[in-house]
């Protein structure tokens, strides 16, 4: 019996929770799509990472015991659309494995390879070969926004055509290869009326975990919060009535949100991660790379040749909730779970700082908390359990 022992691989986003170093390779700034909500405002076809830059980065992280002291590592590949550069990614992963093995690095026994993809190239033979080759270490998330209508509203080709059909045809294979994987859904103002049907649609495709969040940009209109709350309450009813909670999760509903803050911690992991762009520059995360920013230059921490500038990293390592939040957020009675993105904060701050938290989603968070309370209280009554008082 022992020869057949199997262990389920956790998805990269929760693997070794909080103990891993995340190294993000921005292998390309190109993408087949032109999604309307995409934060990558400066996508282009010219910025492509070369193998030498990637090798230097791998050597750097394997040799750097100060900033890479974590027990494990997640090599994340991002773009643009990362699968466009699958051959380069394959070479990078091979180089990492080989160097980690040669140098007896602890990460050889503790690494993962993560992707977030638009899914268009999923069935490409080169992608499939890569998956086969690295099967036990890969986490691959495909982004589908929900129903065809909702998906095609945002996730479009440059000519405006929707991408839904070309993505969904790859879902059965993806589901088979990564049965426990999840999808990521982003909600902007125009998407609100479609939330309920979109999440239910994703469940119907067999996607068991739907990671969903509202955009951090200030796009919200008067009344969006009311509509948002209605959608989530309707979704809560469906999940409860159809007992979907037994097999599926939607991250809009969480038992840990909607309480006052008890700890002074930063929401975002920027600075503990490392992103490297096609020129070999290091950033606190992809949201600080130039092509992600609307109003500011990229925030460079260093590069593979010179290493990381300790001084530039210091703000990120001491950044906490109280130092960046307005007083009303510190005192907010439903604060827990109210997210922020450090890169978006930096981009939209009144001065060039990461210490000014954007409060664009305040009303949306409060609406979410009310719907979340509704969900857990109602479900608790049905199951005869107290599901709301657990912090």
């Amino acid at each position, binding site marked *: 019996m022992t020869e057949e022992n199997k262990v389920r691989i956790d998805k990269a986003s929760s693997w070794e929770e909080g103990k891993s170093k995340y190294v993000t390779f921005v292998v390309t700034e190109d993408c087949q799509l032109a999604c309307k909500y995409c934060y990558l405002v400066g996508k282009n076809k010219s910025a492509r990472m070369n193998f030498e830059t990637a090798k230097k980065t791998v050597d750097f992280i394997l040799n750097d015991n100060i900033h890479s002291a974590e027990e494990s590592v997640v090599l994340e590949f991002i773009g643009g659309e990362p699968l466009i550069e699958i051959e380069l990614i394959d070479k990078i992963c091979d180089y990492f494995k080989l160097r980690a093995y040669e140098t007896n690095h602890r990460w050889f026994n503790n690494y993962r390879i993560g992707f977030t993809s638009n899914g268009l190239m999923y069935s490409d033979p080169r992608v499939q070969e890569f998956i086969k080759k690295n099967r036990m270490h890969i986490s691959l998330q495909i982004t589908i926004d929900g129903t065809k209508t909702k998906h095609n509203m945002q996730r479009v080709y440059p000519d405006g055509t929707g991408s839904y059909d070309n993505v969904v045809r790859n879902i059965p294979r993806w589901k088979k290869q990564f049965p426990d994987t999840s999808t990521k859904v982003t909600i902007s103002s125009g998407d609100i009326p479609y939330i309920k049907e979109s999440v239910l649609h994703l469940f119907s495709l067999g996607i068991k975990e739907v990671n969903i969040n509202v955009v951090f940009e200030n796009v919200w209109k008067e009344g969006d919060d009311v509509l948002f709350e209605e959608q989530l309450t309707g979704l809560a009813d469906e999940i409860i009535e159809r007992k979907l909670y037994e097999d599926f999760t939607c991250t809009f509903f969480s038992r840990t949100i909607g309480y006052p803050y008890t*700890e002074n911690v930063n929401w975002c992991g920027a600075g503990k991660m490392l992103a490297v762009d096609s020129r070999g520059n290091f950033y606190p995360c992809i949201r600080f790379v130039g092509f992600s920013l609307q109003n500011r230059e990229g925030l460079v921490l260093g590069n593979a040749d010179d290493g990381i500038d300790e001084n530039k990293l*210091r703000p990120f390592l001491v950044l906490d909730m109280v130092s960046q939040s307005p007083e009303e957020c510190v005192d907010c009675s439903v604060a827990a779970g109210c997210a922020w993105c450090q890169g978006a904060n930096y981009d939209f701050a009144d*001065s060039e700082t990461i210490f000014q938290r954007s409060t664009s989603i305040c009303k949306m968070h409060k609406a979410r908390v009310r719907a979340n309370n509704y969900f857990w209280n109602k479900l608790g009554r049905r199951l005869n359990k107290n599901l709301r008082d657990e912090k």
Partner: protein
Amino acid sequence: MLKYLMIILSGSSVSFCHYESRKTDKSHKDLMDYDDLKKTVVFALKNNLKVNVLYPRFKPDKKYDRLIDDVEHVKIVPYSLRKYYKDSILCAEPKDLKRKDALNNLSNADIILRLSVSELKELKALTGKLSSHCCRINLVLRDIENLKKNDVNVYRKQIEEISKNIFAKKKIAFPEMNFLTDRIMLDSMNNCGAGVSHVTAAPDGKLYVCPAFYYDGADDAVGNIGSEPEIRNRRLLEIKYSPVCRICDAFQCRRCVYLNKKLTSEINIPSWQQCKTAHAERESSRLFLNKLKEIKYRGAAYRKISEINYDDPFEIAVKNKFSIQDFKYFNSNEKRK
């Protein structure tokens, strides 16, 4: 709350801190417009502010001095002009002090000594030369951004040597020295206060957080002369909003927000250079105080600097996050340690 204004009288005004002014310009063309100076003086008078004036290497027209005399002020002048401006703060660099006549016209002086990192090893000698002619020596490492980790040891050794020299003499006498005696006298933070207790009026007619931001060349103005400054995210200049400084007790630290911005990109986060030099000073001050206590020096028994096991409060800030309660009830003037 604003307490005073800095006035850069000319683009070639003497530098007194971690920045370089335009030294080569000795002409009057870079002088602050007389009307702007007048507006600044009026603003100071109306808002109960004192004024610190940074003078150039030349003597401006007398009407400037007359205008400045209308308001309570301190003149900060190049060392070479010491005979013209009695009771002013003098800015000196090693080359000024190597001249034959370096100690002429020098009595009970208040000196800002600007050294480069490469000149650190001269600190003991320069301090020795100045000691008996000064009431205060304020050291500034003019290019602190070039400091390497080993330079911190050089700095500490120099301060230790200065301390040794003081005790080697029969009669203990020494001027105030920011790097050795300030911390002994302080119970709470006493930093530069740029943007909080003072702002700077510059020759371009604009206000800046401090003179360094004017010379930096970036578009960092916070208003126009004669009007209230408007500093975006001003709260970040307060200690409460610096996760590193609010747990620190190197009270004598300059806490230069310009250096913060330049080196860490954040106005509220100090560089390791700032923290480690401040802690070298703190530790030297602690040992110096202990020696003063040993010889029962007047007042020393009432002062205390505790021993600590770190040389950069950043390490502590990373490990132990401030609690929400501690933040809410934080008082920067509270006696700590």
